[in-house]
């Protein structure tokens, strides 16, 4: 896999995206399609979650089946915060990131000592443990999950309004993507990509490979935690299903469709998958079959993902 290098047109594209996304709620309201603001918010949140997995998978070369755990920890942290009387997102969201990050640190400290299939299985085992913990925790709602009584406030402003909440999610995604793009091109990004290519060589150049991997893993976990906290606010529920390994699978599918190792791979994949779901569900309850065929098509005809077709990565 090639190393990330920002394309010359990346900045204008990013600026155009930011403007377009900022104008989206107004445009949707103008068209009388307010319903889609909620859908767009969902896409933004999953774009964040998938991008955080792409940091691990595409840049760090870590094929984790446990990413849903960090997503779920973020969601539960938000719900528990509210239960404990903390209704301010500026406190709850950083806490969600911290807990997800710390959990990722613990999972990584064990699983990153293994490679290949073992790594996949251990990360999977941790998600399942987190899932069963959530299901069996009565005070956190058990099977039913932990509901939020309403959306939180951000700097005192209520996020109950869909448009405000959209902007909150947009802000979270933008800051995360900015961080991601800088990281990928900075020393740290160079190192984790080189480790993905050849970890022994990096060890022989004096790099503590394990430590770099672990930090990358924890960063990805923390970003997934933020996405989880946002999602809990969107749906009003921290559900144990968020921790299920199939959720990890969904995020993986997003990254693979979008483009593993491409800066916008996760975001593109989230957009495509959620749009497909939205459209196909209208036709048939068995929309997963159609989705499977499309996934097959992507793997066969655009094996590097859709983002690769636009050439967002060079070098």
């Amino acid at each position, binding site marked *: 896999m090639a190393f990330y290098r920002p394309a010359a047109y990346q900045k204008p594209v990013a600026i155009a995206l930011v403007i377009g996304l900022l104008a989206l709620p107004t445009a949707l309201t103008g068209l009388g399609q307010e319903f889609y603001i909620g859908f767009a918010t969902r896409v933004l949140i999953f774009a964040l979650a998938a991008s955080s997995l792409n940091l691990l998978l595409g840049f760090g070369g870590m094929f984790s089946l446990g990413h849903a755990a960090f997503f779920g920890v973020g969601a539960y942290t938000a719900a528990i915060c509210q239960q404990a009387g903390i209704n301010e997102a500026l406190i709850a969201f950083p806490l969600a990131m911290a807990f997800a990050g710390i959990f990722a640190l613990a999972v990584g400290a064990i699983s990153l000592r293994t490679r290949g299939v073992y790594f996949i299985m251990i990360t999977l085992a941790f998600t399942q443990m987190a899932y069963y913990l959530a299901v069996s925790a009565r005070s956190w709602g058990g099977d039913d999950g932990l509901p939020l009584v309403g959306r939180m406030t951000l700097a005192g402003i209520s996020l109950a309004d869909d448009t405000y909440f959209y902007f909150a999610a947009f802000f979270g995604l933008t800051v995360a993507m900015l*961080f991601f793009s800088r990281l990928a091109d900075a020393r740290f*990004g160079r190192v984790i990509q080189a480790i993905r290519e050849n970890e022994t060589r990096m060890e022989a150049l004096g790099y503590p490979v394990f430590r770099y991997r672990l930090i990358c893993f924890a960063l990805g976990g923390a970003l997934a935690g933020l996405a989880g906290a946002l999602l809990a606010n969107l749906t009003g529920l921290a559900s144990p299903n968020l921790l299920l390994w199939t959720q990890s699978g969904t995020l993986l599918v997003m990254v693979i469709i979008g483009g593993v190792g491409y800066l916008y791979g996760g975001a593109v994949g989230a957009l495509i998958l959620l749009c497909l779901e939205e459209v196909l569900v209208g036709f048939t309850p068995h929309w997963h079959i159609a989705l499977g065929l499309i996934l097959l098509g992507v793997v066969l005809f655009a094996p590097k993902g859709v983002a690769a077709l636009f050439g967002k990565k060079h070098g």
Partner: protein
Amino acid sequence: MAEALLEVRQLSRRFAAVDALKDVNFSVDAGEVHALIGPNGAGKTTFIHHVSGALQPDSGSVHFAGRDVTSLAMHSRVAAGMARSYQITNVFLGLSALDNVALAVQGRQDAGTSFRFWKPVRREAALFEEARDYLAQVGLEHRVDTVAGNLAHGEQRALELAMALATQPKMLLLDEPMAGTGPEESARMVELIEHLARHVTILLVEHDMAAVFRLADRISVLVNGQLICTGEPEAVRANPEVRRAYLGDHL
């Protein structure tokens, strides 16, 4: 006699029922070029792995620069001043020659304690300035921007050396630097190693006997996992045990 920079004591390692290395005592003095030779399968590569930290011995110890490094991971040994090149070319083929060396310079500077997430690497002029110096030292100054995958084999071998040098080692561990190179490239590599040997201690594992006898101050011979002799080139050449191990063909 100079002080030993590397000292290996009673090193043993078994793989299943095979003694890959048995009670090996070995030392490299500061400033010398010490060549390790031996027939195929003698355990040279296994030995190098134990010195560099890729493998752990069953018993025995490795001392480097006055400290016991037996339990240290590879990256810590690099930080202590031990750099290695690989028998099979092991560079980042998708990166330019300059980026490859810059990665090595960065590894030495950061030493695993500093993580930079924000500043684009490309804007770190000092990093690349230094990397250029190392490329010049191995004669690749005209290939700076060439993608490593497009370099000739001999040039890739030289790039390996530049990366090892960029870690500013006290000792260079060269695992068959001439492997797969043609006669002309070999001659250039010998010159290059001769030049480097003025500044850095070298442990050389090599099959090319002409190169070994030209470069080495001392030679050790490993046969079936045991060190059968160490000495100056002429003494090693004359040693009957060594002659028997090689059936006389190379020496």
